[in-house]
């Protein structure tokens, strides 16, 4: 219990301060989260869903926590530009775990994009109805820890029938002079027929050890559509634990796209529930890892209603001593007839030290379904390499081209042209080893 102890102690010692800098709705769940966390502790690797990540070790070091909400002197808008050329976005910042408000381009009427703390004060009922409903604290220690300590984050609300054309871009910037832990919370509610596109970019501006827990809850109403893109470009000293929960109602559409380009330890848990008939979900993941990077994607797609469709594609390119893990579980419950599910996972291991753990699972309790999964681990096609070399393309360049082609399948799934082009560019730079940080970042130049 040593790793857990420090967090429990911090909470009991500073409960008043945590509450004071947050909002009532968030504070209301802390007590239960504390109880759940102290009961469960961090999951060991014997827990099936945490088989490939040593959580306790990642949480063991002593990180600073900005519980007193000291504002950082840096103005992120000046210091940082995460540009996607030709993409008009409604840009917002979360520095560590505090939302920085700024005058954003006008969004359609009724749409709310603001700090979670502020939202909890302004629309307490709306937030209370959703907060903590999907990310149950009794089920997962990271949820419990995050609920216990999170003070702020992002709130997105799109009212019935409203379409937000402009992409809502949120830059999560890690900025600190000491080792820091940040607990972010995101709540997105899309009412019936609403449409929105979210882009999260994770960056670290300082060469410090960071530990981030992020819990995202997204409610997608009937016939609503949500596209969520996540792009992680941090550094080797960053530890990210992200839990994403999505609940989909009848005939809704969700696309989740997760790119891990650089980072230290990345753990993404995605739990998607298809609660309403005819809901459809597409999940894409692309991981490019080298050095000592560890990336663990763990997904659960829960088919609870009839005629739902899910499609997953995860691709990993591993170099050096990188470790990749993918565990995807598709659960088709009793009565979820006519479910369609496809799960694909393909992995390239570039070196002898690179390791890949793949675990595509199907659990099916209904008979009229079509479910399949496929998983491969392999190398680049020697013949294709030979072909290119014959034509005067150097070995490195040829490998690069093949890796690009491999990753391209995921990138081309992005529906947004400017973002797709930008990712092409970023992934290529990443393969060339040129990418430490986003080129738009002035701090890193």
């Amino acid at each position, binding site marked *: 219990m040593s790793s857990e102890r420090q967090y429990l102690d911090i909470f009991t010692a500073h409960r008043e301060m945590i509450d004071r800098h947050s909002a009532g709705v968030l504070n209301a769940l802390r007590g239960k989260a504390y109880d759940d966390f102290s009961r469960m502790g961090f999951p060991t690797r014997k827990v099936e869903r945490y088989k490939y990540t040593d959580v306790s070790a990642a949480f063991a070091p002593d990180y600073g926590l900005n519980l007193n909400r000291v504002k950082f002197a840096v103005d992120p808008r000046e210091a940082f530009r995460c540009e996607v050329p030709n993409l008009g976005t409604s840009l917002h910042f979360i520095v560590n775990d505090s939302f920085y408000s700024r005058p954003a381009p006008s969004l359609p009427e009724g749409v709310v994009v603001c700090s979670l703390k502020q939202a909890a004060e302004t629309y307490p009922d709306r937030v209370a109805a959703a907060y903590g409903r999907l990310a149950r604290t009794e089920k997962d220690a990271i949820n419990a820890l995050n609920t216990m300590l999170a003070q702020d984050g992002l709130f997105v609300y799109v009212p019935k029938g409203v379409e937000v054309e402009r992409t809502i871009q949120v830059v999560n910037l890690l900025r600190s002079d000491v080792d820091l832990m940040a607990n972010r919370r995101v709540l997105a509610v899309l009412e019936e027929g609403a449409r929105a596109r979210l882009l999260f970019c994770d960056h670290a501006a300082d060469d410090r050890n960071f530990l981030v827990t992020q819990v995202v809850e997204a409610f997608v109403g009937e016939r609503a559509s949500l596209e969520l893109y996540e792009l992680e470009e941090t550094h080797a000293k960053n530890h990210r634990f992200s839990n994403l929960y999505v609940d989909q109602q009848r005939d809704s559409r969700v696309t989740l796209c997760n790119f891990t380009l650089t980072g230290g330890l990345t753990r993404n848990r995605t739990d998607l529930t298809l609660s309403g008939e005819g809901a459809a979900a597409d999940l894409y993941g692309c991981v490019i890892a080298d050095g000592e990077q560890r990336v663990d994607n763990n997904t659960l797609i829960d088919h609870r209603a009839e005629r739902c469709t899910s499609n997953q594609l995860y691709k990993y390119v591993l170099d050096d001593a990188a470790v990749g893990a993918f565990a995807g579980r598709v659960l088709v419950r009793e009565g979820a007839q006519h479910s369609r599910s496809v799960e694909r996972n393909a992995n390239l291991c570039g070196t002898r030290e690179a390791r890949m753990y*793949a675990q595509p699972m199907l659990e099916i309790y209904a008979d009229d379904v079509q479910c399949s999964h496929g998983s491969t681990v392999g190398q680049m096609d020697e013949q294709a390499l030979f072909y290119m070399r014959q034509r005067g393309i150097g070995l490195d360049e040829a490998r690069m081209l093949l890796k690009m082609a491999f990753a391209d399948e995921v990138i081309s799934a992005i529906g947004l042209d400017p973002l797709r082009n930008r990712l092409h560019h970023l992934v290529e730079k990443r393969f060339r080893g040129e990418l430490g940080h986003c080129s738009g970042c002035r701090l890193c130049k």
Partner: protein
Amino acid sequence: MRGRADVKNRYVREVTQKKYEYGFTTDVQTEVIERGLNEDVVRLISAKKEEPEWLLEFRLAAYRYWQTQEQPTWGHLTLPEIDYQAISYYADPTKGNKKNGPKSLDEIDPELMKTFDKLGIPLEERLALSGTAVDAVMDSVSVKTTFKEKLSERGIIFCSISEAVREYPDLVKQYLGSVVPYRDNYFAALNSAVFSDGSFVYIPKGVRCPMELSTYFRINARNTGQFERTLIVCDDGGYVSYLEGCTAPMRDENQLHAAIVEIVVNENAEVKYSTVQNWYPGDAEGRGGVLNLVTKRGHLRGANSKLSWTQVETGSAVTWKYPSCVLSGDNSQAEFYSVAVTNHHQQADTGTKMIHLGRNTKSTIISKGISAGKSQNSYRGLVRVASKADGARNYSSCDSLLLGSECGAHTFPYMDVCNDTAIVEHEATTSKISEEQLFYCNQRGIPTEEAVGLIVNGYAKDVINKLPMEFAVEAQKLLSVSLEGTVG
């Protein structure tokens, strides 16, 4: 449409009412020791078998280890609670014969002979036209091994493990527990402590075994468990094809079957191991049935060695086993072909482990699951490529067929790849019987029930084809018995 549905329902009824064919009991004088398990029982079993000191020590070490362990719960199964003290760990139906077992057929209790005749296992050699050598094991004791002399001409040893302990102690000592150590898992520890009989096979260097070797296991006595132990050693350049079949009488309580199979394959040798498992599956309400908790593993020690597991699993209330291969020898090859059928309340969590350690090792996994009734059928498999296993290659394909809306089919594959030259592929599908295929057959005058049988047999063909001839026929029959008409 209504007519068709009626036909379907009729067949569903028929199948659910179908009785387990091998559910009779044999009234034979059986010596059963007191129920319960403690060190004295372990010593008693060892004494009854007149075992050497080292084996008793092995048993006791296993027993002590078992006591420190807890029964695992990670399977996708609901195991009924097992009261290990309510089981008798030794039952001897040959009691009354000489200590070393029957010397000739005349010495075998005619009731026992009848039992095996009824099961279609020919113990009388002149009747054994199929040319298969049989070791028949009832409860804790090997009743009779046929063709022993003919095999020994080529230096092949085929006998019960108790006999092997007496006759070839060095061989047994060398290999016993070398593939599945008693610390391997809970049930392996239990088996190592109380194992009774089973077969021992030794194929000397360069010898191809001229006939199929077969062991037939039968649980007969009430409240006993079966803990057999099979050890197969195939020396350099040898070849053997080994078959295993199992049945048990119908009883309302669960019977425990915790066996161990160890296979050692040396350089250039090849072993084929086929199982048709038809333990009593329990009745339609899920009462009774055998709990089949088995550890099977082969170690491909030599270069160019080959091991092939083929299993047809139709019986048992609970099947929880993973016949595995450790591919240590360079260029070694392993195969796993499986058809697992579950009906009524049966549960199966089965699959394989392929551990690639040597270079250019290859493994193939073909698994077909068929679930009907209220059963749960899971494939769970591990493919691990160690960092030194250059050029390792694996192909896995797991298909599940669902017949009925209350059953479940699950796939849990694990792939751990630590080598950049390895190629590992896995694919799985789950679906119900294609309406189109059924319609196609119907159109051509084939009634639905026959069409289902046809489609299921076609579906399982990849695996059935790998079985030796006699077993393939039996397996096909079993499939049709278990499934015909269950589509609903």
